[in-house]
């Protein structure tokens, strides 16, 4: 506030002092350079007097005006405290050219103060609820929490999947007759499957890019024999088994140019397949003692 005053006072042209004083103050209040609710009248008056002495424009009329300005300020302040608008006070002051105000509408001049209505200058009220950084600030704790949460989900999901797979397995095997089980491991049985697949796959894969393992049961083979036959077939000819992720659908495709990554994928699938077969055999062995009912 003090700086603002110094600046304004220094800008005063002594020749025109008679008309300048109060306008400057009102102007400054309007521009928010001084707080009309909290003006230090003594400070303002002292400064003004000092300035008058310095400028050597010692003029009784000016000194008198200074005191007048101070009392007008005081009146302004008390008026404001009473609830009368600053704008109501303006017409009593000689208006300088307010170049910054380009209003085609002079709301203020037609404004009649009432208790319930505000002036257009006051329609917009600054909110105090504004916050910087409104975007979610994610802390490391959030990050960890999120990771933990999704990991928990993952685990639950894979547990459930494993459970369901186990149930399905038991169900499938329970449909097998002992003969089927014995035949499963029999070379001829596998050879028959391989032949059947070889005869059909070529034709199928000419029509489409890939076929899902389950669809092969349409050829009249059960899923396990189809699978085992496929493993043999991929080893001896140009078919591949692919799977986007573990436990998802397994597809048969025609092998094309083999890149390194494909080899890795194939190796993974093969490993997975071997594991699956081992598991199956384990389960079957278990089943023969327990869950699988063997017919006489």
């Amino acid at each position, binding site marked *: 506030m003090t700086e603002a005053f110094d600046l304004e006072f220094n800008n005063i042209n002594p020749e025109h002092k008679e008309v300048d004083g109060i306008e400057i103050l009102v102007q400054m209040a309007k521009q928010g350079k001084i707080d009309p609710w909290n003006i230090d009248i003594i400070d303002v008056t002292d400064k003004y007097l000092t300035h008058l002495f310095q400028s050597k424009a010692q003029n009784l009329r000016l000194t008198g005006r200074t005191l007048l300005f101070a009392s007008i300020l005081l009146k302004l302040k008390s008026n404001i405290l009473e609830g009368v608008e600053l704008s109501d006070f303006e017409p009593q002051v000689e208006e300088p050219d307010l170049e910054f105000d380009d209003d085609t509408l002079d709301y203020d001049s*037609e404004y009649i103060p009432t208790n*319930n*209505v*505000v002036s*257009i200058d006051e329609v*917009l*009220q600054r909110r*105090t*609820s504004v916050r910087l950084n409104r975007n979610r600030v994610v802390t490391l704790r959030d990050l960890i929490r999120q990771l933990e949460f999704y990991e928990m989900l993952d685990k639950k999901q894979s547990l459930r999947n494993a459970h369901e797979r186990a149930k399905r397995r038991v169900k499938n095997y329970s449909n097998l007759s002992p003969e089927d089980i014995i035949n499963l491991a029999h070379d001829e049985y596998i050879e028959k499957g391989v032949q059947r697949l070889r005869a059909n796959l070529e034709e199928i894969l000419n029509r489409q890019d890939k076929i899902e393992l389950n669809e092969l049961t349409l050829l009249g083979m059960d899923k396990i024999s189809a699978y085992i036959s496929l493993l043999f077939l991929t080893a001896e000819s140009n078919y591949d088994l692919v799977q986007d992720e573990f436990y998802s659908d397994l597809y048969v495709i025609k092998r094309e140019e083999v890149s390194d990554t494909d080899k890795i994928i194939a190796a993974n699938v093969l490993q997975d397949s071997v594991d699956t077969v081992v598991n199956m055999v384990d389960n079957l062995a278990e089943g023969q003692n327990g869950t699988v009912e063997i017919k006489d």
Partner: protein
Amino acid sequence: MEQLKSRIEAVLFTTAKVLHIKDIAEILEEEPDKVEEALLELIMDYSSRDGALEIDDEDGYILQVKEEHMDIVEKLCPVELKPPVLKTLTVIALKEPIRQSYLKELRSNAYEHVQELLDKGLISRTKDKNGRSFNIRTTPKFAEYFKLKGDLRSLMKSDINKLLATSTTED
């Protein structure tokens, strides 16, 4: 009840905008009546406490800094608009959506003001249906920084409307 109060407080703090009972009830999946009751208690808690924050309940509920600390808000989130631009913004806020051509009749230098307000993200401008003029309205950012104050309905009906009516020849 204490628990619900806390959850309402969390909602107000996080959204940082004016919410109505039904908004809060929806977010928290609670009965509006229960929300209202707890909210009123929360408002009382805030007002009995001697802190910097309060819940404003004028036309919706919002958690905000008390008027007396406005200087801090202004310092940290300044909106630097000169008085004439602010007036143009006021006219837009009162009349939105307002056609740019109409605004130009009401306010000299409207075009520059509109540019500045667009740059600051306080208003948005879209072509109207016939493609002949632009429609201007305030943005969510505006709502974040400003609110319309006081008895607006009587204001709209009386002074402003008269003022706007006398100053325009056509709409």
